[in-house]
C-alpha cells in the first residue's frame, strides 16, 4: 500500500501554504519564475527537480530568509511575504536545514529545550535556573523516547551519529508544534540505515502537520509524500500525485528520459 492510500488527505481541508506568482531574481538571473504552490492542511508534499532548479531558494522564500522579487506567500490565509523568519515560526512554520544546525556545544536536551521554550515567555527569564523548568526537560525526553534516543539526552550533540543528529533536528522542528514543516533534504549525507530512521520518523508523524520536503533521493520522496511538485529552472513544470508522476512525460524527460 502506498502512503497516499494509507493517509488520504481530506480534499476539502483548508489551504495551509499558498504561494502565488513567486519570482526571485538575482540580477538578471531568474532563480524562481512565477511559482504557484498550494499545500493543504496536513498534506505531504515533495519538491523535486534537478540541481539548480531553485528548490532551496523556494524554501528560503517560504521561510522568510529571502524576499521574493514578486509574488506573495500566505500561511493559512495570512500574508507573510515580508515577515522575518522568527515571526513565521510563531505562526506555525518550522524548518530543517540542509546541513545539520544543532547547537554543537550543547547537549541534546538543551537543543530540544531551546525549541520548546522558543514560543513561550520563559525565554526571557533571566534569574531562574533552567533546571527548575522540569516540564521542558520531560517533554524533551518524551520526544527523544519516541525515536529511542532518550539515553543520549545529556550527551553533547557532537557525540551523536549523523543519522541521530538529523533525527534530533527533526524533533526540534516538531517540538515547535508547527502546522507546516519544511524539510530541506532531510536524508542528505545519511547512510541507508539512517535514511530509513528519518523516513520512518516522518511517516509516523501526526496528520495535523503539513510537510513540504525537498529531496534528491526519490525513493525517500515516494515513501513519505502524497503529491509531488517538480521544479525546473525555477518554474513549476509538473504537479502530480506520487503515482501520476511516473507517467508524466515532462518529468521523464527531465530525469534523462528514463523511467522513474
Amino acid at each position, binding site marked *: 500500500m502506498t502512503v497516499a492510500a494509507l493517509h488520504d488527505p481530506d480534499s476539502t481541508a483548508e489551504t495551509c501554504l499558498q504561494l502565488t506568482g513567486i519570482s526571485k531574481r538575482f540580477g538578471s538571473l531568474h532563480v524562481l519564475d512565477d511559482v504557484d504552490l498550494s499545500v493543504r492542511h496536513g498534506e505531504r508534499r515533495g519538491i523535486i527537480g534537478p540541481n539548480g532548479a531553485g528548490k532551496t531558494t523556494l524554501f528560503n522564500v517560504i*521561510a522568510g*530568509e529571502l524576499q521574493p522579487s514578486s509574488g506573495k506567500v500566505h500561511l493559512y490565509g495570512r500574508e507573510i511575504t515580508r515577515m*522575518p*523568519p*522568527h515571526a513565521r*515560526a*510563531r505562526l506555525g512554520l*518550522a*524548518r530543517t*536545514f540542509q546541513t545539520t*544546525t*544543532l*547547537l*554543537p*556545544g*550543547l*547537549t541534546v536536551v*538543551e537543543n530540544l*529545550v*531551546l*525549541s520548546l*521554550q*522558543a*514560543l513561550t515567555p*520563559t*525565554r*526571557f*527569564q*533571566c*534569574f*531562574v*535556573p*533552567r*533546571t527548575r*523548568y522540569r516540564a521542558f526537560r520531560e517533554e524533551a525526553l518524551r520526544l527523544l523516547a519516541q525515536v529511542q534516543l532518550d539515553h543520549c539526552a*545529556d*550527551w*553533547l550533540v557532537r*557525540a551523536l551519529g549523523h543519522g541521530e543528529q538529523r533525527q534530533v533536528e527533526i524533533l*526540534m522542528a516538531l517540538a*515547535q508544534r508547527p502546522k507546516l514543516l519544511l524539510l530541506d533534504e532531510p536524508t542528505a549525507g545519511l547512510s541507508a540505515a539512517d535514511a530509513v530512521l528519518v523516513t520512518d520518523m516522518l511517516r509516523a508523524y501526526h496528520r495535523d502537520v503539513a510537510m513540504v520536503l525537498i529531496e534528491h533521493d526519490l525513493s525517500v520522496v515516494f515513501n513519505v509524500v502524497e503529491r509531488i511538485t517538480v521544479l525546473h529552472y525555477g518554474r513549476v513544470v509538473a504537479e502530480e500525485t506520487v503515482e501520476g508522476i511516473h507517467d508524466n512525460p515532462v518529468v521523464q524527460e527531465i530525469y534523462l528520459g528514463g523511467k522513474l
Partner: protein
Amino acid sequence: MLRPWRNVAIIGVLLVLAIAVPRLGLPAFYVSLLTQTWIYGILAMSLDLLVGFTGLVSFMQAAFFGIGAYVVAIAATRYHFVDFWPTLVVAILLAAITAAAFGALALRAEDAGFIIITLALNEIVWGLAYQWVSMSGGDNGITGFLRVNVGPFHTTDNAGFYYLSLAALVVCLTLLVLMVRSPFGLVLVGTRERPRRMAALGYNVWLFRYLALIIAAMFAAVAGVLFAYYNEFVGPGSLSLDTTTQVLIMVILGGTGTLIGPLLGAGILVFLSNALSDITQRWVLILGAIYVVTVMYAPDGIVGLVKRLAARAQSRRELSLAASAPVTAASNPTRGPE
C-alpha cells in the same frame, strides 16, 4: 553535569579567603590591588556576557564604564548630589539608555561591522569626555568628590572600600551566573552559535542581542561607579581605547564564556601590570606579548587551559581504569556525557 556542591564549596572557601584578606596584615597596597581586581572584574564579566555568551565582540563597554564614573563625579561636583544609591541608579539608567541607542545602531551590522561601529561609538563617548571641558573637565578630569559611606561599609577606610567592592562583585557575579544558567542565557548561547537556526525556531535574535548589550552596559556602569569612588577622580582615560583593550585582554586571558575566567583575568592584569611596571617601563609591551601568546596558544584562556588539562587527566584516568577492568559491552569512554 557539573558538580554543583563542589563548586559551591570552592566558591565558599574563596569568599572566606577574600573576606579575610584585609585582616591578614598585608600592606594596604595589596588590598588596593584586590579592590581594583573586584572593580575591573565586574567590568570584565560584563564584557564576557557579550563576547563569551552572546558572541558579540563589543568594543564599547568602556564607554558605559566611563558613563557610570562620570555620573558620580558630575553629580557630586556639579549638582552637589552625593547620595550613593540614587547616583548608582542614575548611572545604571543612563548607561542603559545609551546602550539602547548605541545598540540599535551597532546591531545594524554583523560581525566585522558591529565591531567597528562599537569601537567608533566608544571613541565618540571618549571624545565627548575629552573635549566637552565644561562638563567633564576635559583631559584634567574631575576631582573634588569623596567616597561616601554605603550601608555598613565605611568606605573612607581602605578595608571598608575593599568590602564594598567585594560585596558588589559577589552580587554582580551571582546575578550573572543566574543569568547564564537561565533560559535567557541558553538563548544567548544559541544566538551566538546558530543565529539562523534560532530565528527558525521563533527567536527574535536581534532582540536578544539588544537586551544583552543593555544588560552588560548596566553592569559596566556599576563598575564605573565604584571606580569613581575608589579613585576619587575621573578622567577620559577611564573610557579610552586603552581601557577597552585592557578589559578585552582580561576576558581573553581568563577565558571567554566562563565569567570566573574574566575575573581571574582582571586579577592577573591588575597584579601583573603593577608588578611589571615596577621592574620595567616596557610593561605594556610585555603585556601585549603575553596577550598574543595567549590568543595563539591558549585561546580559551587560563580557565580553558585548566579545564583541558583536567579533562585530559580525567580521560587518562578513565583509560587506565578501563585497561585494568574487564571489558563490558556498555562501556564506551569516548562517547558519553560531558
